[in-house]
């Protein structure tokens, strides 16, 4: 287990098979007086499923928004898929996929039309569009429903469609913010199976946030616990659990290390809770 303040040496390893997918350097975001993300330095290797856990308002979503170039950092920087988020945001966007926590598929379009929109926005070559969309629909088990309006999809189907939309341009790094929120256990399993499949077969890197500790325990290669905008601890699930004691679960890790710091007065918490309930309702 490494405590997050240490700097990594992965940049030197860059020539080897293990390459850095995400490297942040003292990444910070303030909203007025409140520091949502506080000097996070973190390295994520290519081909790992990296989990971010932490209390509501801890800064997970803000962290991801900066890495996906939706939100500029106040200070510090990050290299994502080989490009600096401040200097080359358009290049970063070309090489990443993002599945927001919120409902991002358009409910008044069909599944196929949603995919076509993404393919066009990402500049997927015209000759390949149809094949890629067909492939994505098949992989996600949405072939039958392709021409139905997404407003009639189940929560699990919408999530699978959203993941498919984010993959059409073959991104190197995929960010998933609460991908299983509001889904029933069966649908949650399906989503995770696809995420694991992406890593195992295509060596894609995935950064996932979730409050479902059992899921994170089962699927993440490494996990970082964020509280009050800082990384409290980072390591494999086994390392995190071992640090707490025998028979500890990831829940115990969470409660022990983040529970004490949970701040209910933190700005942005209300909005985040509202959004989470919103997306849970819409996907559920």
């Amino acid at each position: 287990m490494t405590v997050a303040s240490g700097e990594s040496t992965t940049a030197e390893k860059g020539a080897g098979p293990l390459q850095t997918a995400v490297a942040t350097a003292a990444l910070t975001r303030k909203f007025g007086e409140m520091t949502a993300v506080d000097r996070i330095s973190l390295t994520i290797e290519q081909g790992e499923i990296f989990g971010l856990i932490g209390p509501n308002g801890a800064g997970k979503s803000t962290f991801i928004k900066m890495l996906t170039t939706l939100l500029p950092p106040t200070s510090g920087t990050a290299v994502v898929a080989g490009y600096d988020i401040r200097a080359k945001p358009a290049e970063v966007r070309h090489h990443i996929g993002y599945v927001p926590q919120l409902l991002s598929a358009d409910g008044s379009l069909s599944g196929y039309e949603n995919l076509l929109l993404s393919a066009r926005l990402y500049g997927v070559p015209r000759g390949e569009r149809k094949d890629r969309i067909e492939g994505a629909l098949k992989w996600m088990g949405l072939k039958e429903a392709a021409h139905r309006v997404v407003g009639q999809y189940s929560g699990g189907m919408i999530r699978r469609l959203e993941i498919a939309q984010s993959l059409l341009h073959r991104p190197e790094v995929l960010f998933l913010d609460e991908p299983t929120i509001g889904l029933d256990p069966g649908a949650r399993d399906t989503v995770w199976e696809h995420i694991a499949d992406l890593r195992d077969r295509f060596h894609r890197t995935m950064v996932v946030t979730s409050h479902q500790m059992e899921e994170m325990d089962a699927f993440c290669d490494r996990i970082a616990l964020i509280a009050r905008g800082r990384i409290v601890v980072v390591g494999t699930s086994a390392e995190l659990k071992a640090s707490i004691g025998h028979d500890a679960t990831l829940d115990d890790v969470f409660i022990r290390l983040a529970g004490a710091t949970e701040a209910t007065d933190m700005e942005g918490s209300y909005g985040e809770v509202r959004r989470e309930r919103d997306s849970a309702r819409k996907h559920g």
Partner: protein
Amino acid sequence: MAKSGASATRPANMAERSVATGIVGYAEQAFAVAAAEVQKLRHDPVELFTRAVQPVLWLMLFGEVMARVRGVAPGNIPYLDYLSAGILAQSTLFVAIFYGISAIWERDLGVLQRYLVSPAPRSALVLGKALSAGVRALSQALIVYLLAIVLGVAISLDPIHVVGVVVAIMLASALFSTLSLIIACIVKTRERFMGIGQVLTMPIFFASNAIYPLSLMPVWLRVVSRTNPLTYEVDALRALMLAEGASVYGLLVDFGFLVAVAAFLVAVAAGMYGRMGY
């Protein structure tokens, strides 16, 4: 500082993409946004018909009464003819000025984030949204045309005139919808937006030549109306839509004004649109 890790960036391969493919890609991204709008309307066209009620009421109630008042329309054009071009412009204004609501809606849902995280330049997205509003407005034009013909308005069906009307409507819709998008970027909530939208439509509509000529106005209002893009849209529509119509300012001035204001607003909105995703 972990500068060592953060500085190991790849060279940008922007240079490899030639200017020509860049322009094609840009147009395609803007087109993609507008195409999605057409698909939405195909799935649920009800909105198009409910929106058609308002121009029908204006022409049939207000128009029929005002047609009895002498001396409103200049020259020898019947008032109903004069009004029909104004009502066409008005219906596109009303559709476009509330367009920002859908942007706020998309933001609340999360659809906006999908747009913003794509590599499409913000201005291509804004332009696509502007085109979408134009597509919606064209359906209004069809209804106003049909109604005007039924009411006996002398419509010009010269193909060049019809194309001119389409261009004028697309331009004006792009302009007002982008203005609406800018307001949406500033106020960010639907409640606040509704209030501002209501407040805006009245002066834009009445401080224009849509239902009466500027010559009937006091001087100060005439000055205001001359800066109102709706005035130039109506002026172009009167010249192109009506068989006996003529432009007061000249079509070059009309289209030039609309293009300049629309381009300015798209540039402003492109700078603000990204912040909607914060």
